[in-house]
């Protein structure tokens, strides 16, 4: 059976070049980057080169790059590393659980959080952020692109507000990496977190931009790795893989890959929206899609359950997801879609298609054949359908 993977926002496969770049660092150049001898120097040089690549990726200085284990660690570090009892924190209600759960923990330590809700379009209004600022506000954290809808948030404007008001600004850029060109000065952020595996790098490795002078307390303490910002022996193969993935991502943003990806996403979206009783999640008042990353579309289907459609599509060889993979097992309707004002039924009946950069026209066409069949079949059986139609 044909298998089509359309869940790139959950994770992506390594590109062969990434695998190749990492290969020598498992057995041949296995040294500890902190060691003085040749083995150590080889590893250290590889980490340094990777740091320079990441500096280009973020458009920052090499000394501002800290390697860590991925997006969750970056998000947690920003929050626990900057906020102290009595501080106020501003984030949004559509963040990843790595932010939301960290904020919940803060509450137990006397740190209050304001969760700014998005507009029905899915966009955060920077003015809402501005209005939430208090004298004791120390940190704002907003995602660059939403994992479920792909909606690109106006971080540049929020960065200006942060700068004007003297508040630190962290961007969870996990879902923007490799899809949006980064420039941390233009974003106006002090901190920014990414994860390698969302852009064809390995799992378990990530990086954080930490603007010089930001008083960030490390989450992990121990050795003097990463300029004392993150203790723990460097994951050299992972770091090399991340840098290779970042290099390829920068290249793909200049060679037309993103435009091609957007065109195929649009073709998929237009095709799926031909099915009666469907609609796009994330539109402005003018009915236009709001700014989004090129690979993601989130669509609601009336008269069926998203969960059943995900299973039916899986059995037909199509991997998609109802929302964030980080909530598997839990099946509360998406907090992102609910925050955008969808009711529970519609939030449960929504699917996220997130395409890999390597997606082909044939794959899109296969999905466009399978989805309408599955929807029709499910609706024919569904008591939800009977209830709605009757």
């Amino acid at each position: 059976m044909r298998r089509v993977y359309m869940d790139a926002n959950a994770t992506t496969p390594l590109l062969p070049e990434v695998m190749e770049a990492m290969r020598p660092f498992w057995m041949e150049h296995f040294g500890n980057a902190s060691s003085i001898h040749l083995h150590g120097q080889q590893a250290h040089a590889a980490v340094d080169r990777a740091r320079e690549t990441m500096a280009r990726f973020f458009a920052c200085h090499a000394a501002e790059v800290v390697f860590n284990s991925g997006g969750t660690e970056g998000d947690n570090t920003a929050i626990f590393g900057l906020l102290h009892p009595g501080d106020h924190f501003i984030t949004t209600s559509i963040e990843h659980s790595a932010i939301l759960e960290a904020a919940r923990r803060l509450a137990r330590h006397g740190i209050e959080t304001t969760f700014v809700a998005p507009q029905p379009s899915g966009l955060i209004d920077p003015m809402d952020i501005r209005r939430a600022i208090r004298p004791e506000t120390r940190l704002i954290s907003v995602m660059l692109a939403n994992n479920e809808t792909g909606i690109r948030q106006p971080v540049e404007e929020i960065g200006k507000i942060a700068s004007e008001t003297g508040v630190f600004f962290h961007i969870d850029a996990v879902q923007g990496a490799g899809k949006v060109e980064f420039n941390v000065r233009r974003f106006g952020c002090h901190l920014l977190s990414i994860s390698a595996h969302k852009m064809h790098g390995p799992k378990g490795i990530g990086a954080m931009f930490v603007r010089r002078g930001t008083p960030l307390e490390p989450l992990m303490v121990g050795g003097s790795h990463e300029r004392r910002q993150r203790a723990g022996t460097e994951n050299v193969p992972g770091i090399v893989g991340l840098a290779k993935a970042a290099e390829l991502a920068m290249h793909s943003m200049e060679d037309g890959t993103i435009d091609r990806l957007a065109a195929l996403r649009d073709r998929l979206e237009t095709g799926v929206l031909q099915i009666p009783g469907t609609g796009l999640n994330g539109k402005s008042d003018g009915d236009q899609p709001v700014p989004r990353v090129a690979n993601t579309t989130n669509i609601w289907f009336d008269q069926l359950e998203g969960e059943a459609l995900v299973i039916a599509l899986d059995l037909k060889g199509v991997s998609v997801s109802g929302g964030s993979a980080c909530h598997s097992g839990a099946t509360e309707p998406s907090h992102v879609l609910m925050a955008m004002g969808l009711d529970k039924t519609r939030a449960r009946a929504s699917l996220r298609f997130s395409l890999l950069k390597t997606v082909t026209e044939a794959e899109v066409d296969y999905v466009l054949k399978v989805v309408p069949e599955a929807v029709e079949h499910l609706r024919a059986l569904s008591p939800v359908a009977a209830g709605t139609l009757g």
Partner: protein
Amino acid sequence: MTESTTIAVAMSGGVDSSTVAALLAHAGDGSAVSRNAVVGLTLQLWNQTRLAGRHGIPDTPKAGRCCSLDDVYDARRVAEHLGIPYYVVNQEARFEQDVVRPFVSEYLAGRTPIPCSLCNNHLKFDQLLQTARSIGASRIATGHYAVNEYDSGRGRWILKRPTDLAKDQTYFLFGLTQAQLARTLFPLGRLTKPEVREIARQHGLALAEKPDSQEICFIPGGDYKQFLTAYLEEQGEQIPETAGELVTSNGEVLGRHEGIFNFTVGQRKGLGVSSPSPLYVLQLDPVSHRVTVGTDAELATRTLRACHLNWISIPELAGPMRVQIKIRHRHEPAWATLEPAGSDEVIATFDEPQRAVTPGQSAVFYDGDEVVGGGWIV
């Protein structure tokens, strides 16, 4: 879509349903049927951490409970081991509406509900069949100990007691309709529990020695009063005031009690009165909130009424019929004569008086090994 031969197995993470998956995934000749011919499903019905920390409910739920992450993990491991697709389907909202809510209301109304039958009748089979069909499976299989056979003479699906009578679960299955039975397989019906464990071992299932679960799946520790309190507190509701008098059958007031939901018919402990001979709860009055107590002898009754009937081996009860009746899961079926009593109601007259006929429980009627039908005791 054409009728498929795909079977969806309801997997709880226990030995029984895991063995069903193993039996179906690997046909008798040892050849594995094609990957998509068997699909494992787990209905996620209750979040075991939902009431954690409330009213004496532990912060972390015990392991090995239905719908716990541990059980989902076990079911997933079995599916991986067998090479079958596996999915968790969330039905928490419907479970709460169709099982938990009625369970709570029944207790508050002075009856003693059986959530497992509520679940089987109103949710499990209905929902499993629905989900199965939505993924292209025409039939479901479960790990219940029961036999389900088509009798062409009568043109009906017949539910029968299993070979392993100690594991007989037909009492909880009386509500299955003909349409549901026609699409349901009980592959363990002719096996004993030790045989099932042996099959699990032969298939290399790591959970072959996992202990049986006995308690109500959503009640941590089995303390239903604690559950009622914690659930109502979570819902922001008050426990209705049902305190009242504790009286004997001839009206003598022995004392007061704090609420009728603390009692169930036949209960002996925790009555809060002393008496020379043991006293048992005979009756709970949801209107006057009076709890009547009496001797063991007074607990016995000759008749019962049952409503909300479902018939399995017969289309309906036309006239008096001799049957054996089970009034509790662990009750030895007792001979009785069943008679229609108005619409959707029957009266049963036992040959010998039966102890603690409890409103809210079900009465299941047997003709030998066959389930004739059943209903809810009024």
